[in-house]
């Protein structure tokens, strides 16, 4: 069964913007005096673009590709938050949770030979990253250091992460619900919201990359 036009369009838009984001990251993230935590972002963009390429070549392994990408996404954002959060204890908790989820994912992959991502894994990933984002905002408000939010890459990146992952859980849950009811149209429509949310978060990542660098 072919996906509905709304889902196809959203996925096309997402893929196109992923490549544009990769190009932009190669231009902006390596500027002199750019925030050091942004220098790893091009790697995320490369990882973001690869699934689309790989699934074109090996359509049968789409599930596995998405599985691996989701693990990569969780690891990247955990690394990103460990760079911007100040509390050592919080970083330790973050890495412990991520490691536990990774172990679970690896166990599923090798021991149970399950190659498709499941909702539990996505929900776990979302909760970890949402909690990290909220902790960042808490840190922003309680530390006495005052920054210009509009020129703070970590603010825009965290807003993008929070926005996307907060919308991910309800969209996936509702999409699966309609798919289970064999209502493809509603399922695809709601699933496309996930792609559009990612497009919007790409806009925020782009803003993060293009923040002006403070003069020394």
């Amino acid at each position: 069964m072919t996906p509905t036009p709304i889902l196809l369009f959203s996925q096309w838009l997402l893929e196109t913007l992923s490549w544009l984001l990769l190009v932009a990251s190669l231009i902006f993230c390596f500027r002199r005096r750019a925030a050091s935590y942004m220098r790893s972002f091009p790697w995320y963009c490369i990882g973001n673009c690869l699934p689309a390429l790989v699934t074109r070549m090996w359509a049968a392994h789409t599930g596995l590709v998405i599985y691996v990408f989701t693990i990569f996404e969780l690891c990247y954002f955990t690394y990103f938050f460990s760079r911007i959060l100040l509390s050592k204890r919080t970083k330790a908790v973050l890495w412990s949770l991520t490691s536990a989820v990774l172990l679970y994912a690896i166990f599923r992959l090798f021991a149970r030979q399950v190659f498709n991502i499941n909702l539990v894994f996505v929900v776990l990933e979302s909760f970890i990253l949402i909690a990290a984002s909220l902790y960042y905002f808490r840190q922003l408000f309680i530390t006495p250091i005052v920054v210009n939010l509009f020129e703070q890459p970590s603010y825009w990146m965290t807003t993008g992460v929070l926005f996307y992952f907060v919308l991910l859980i309800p969209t996936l849950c509702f999409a699966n619900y309609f798919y289970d009811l064999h209502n493809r149209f509603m399922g695809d429509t709601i699933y496309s919201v996930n792609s559009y949310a990612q497009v919007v978060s790409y806009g925020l990542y782009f803003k993060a990359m293009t923040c002006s660098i403070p003069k020394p």
Partner: protein
Amino acid sequence: MQYPKAIAAGFLIIVFLLALLLVFIASTVYLYQKKHRSFLLKLEETRIKYERELLKSQLEVQEDTLQHLSRELHDSVAGQFTLAKLYLSTITLPSGHPSVDKFALVIDLLTKGLEDLRDVSKSLSLDLIRSIGLRKAIEAQVIHLRKAGEYYISYDVRGACDYDDEQKEIIVFRIFQEAVNNIIRHAQATTIRIVLDSTTKDRLRLIIADNGKGFAAKQLVQRADNSRPGGLRNMHVRARLIDAHITIISLPDKGTTVDLSVPLATDSFLTQSNT
């Protein structure tokens, strides 16, 4: 659903998501700016408090020094003058001696010097103002100035001028002394007008005006604290400590007016830090 409809639907979804995002970003930015403002306010309050503590300490050191000087003048210098006068009084020159007049003059000068010394000692000490209050302390100073015979001085008291705050009275008195010292040292004036006004319910006003040579007040007053002349600086520093407002109006050859306005509310920094 055809592609154009899909694109339109996609566009609508993106607009809706952007609206949600905008609300979130506006809220975080607003709350963050609020936190920033309150942080700056706290910083300013701490800076003001620190500055006032520093000022208060400086003035306490000055007052201690003046008290010490007053005691030394009274106990040591005045004592020696008294002894000198006593020794001279025991010497009797025979009548017709060529130095009799000069001798009497010396004793008179010593007596006058002793009186002046005692007046200076009293004015440096805080006992005067503590015992008789601001109004009468200024009156005593006016009487002392009139004795010198160099100035025509008018002292106008309006209202009861019963100020119940000893600390503020001391500071107002010191400002008054500083202003008068400046007139004596620099103004070359012949007339001094002093007004002590407490007719306004919440304010005490002290005006000291002279008809002397004046100075470029605006330029001097606008200088930062450290580069202002010491007397002007002290007056402003003391006024700040009691939340008073001091205005110095002067132009070359047009005389000088010092206008001090002191709030009578008791919540000054001095009373706060002493509780």
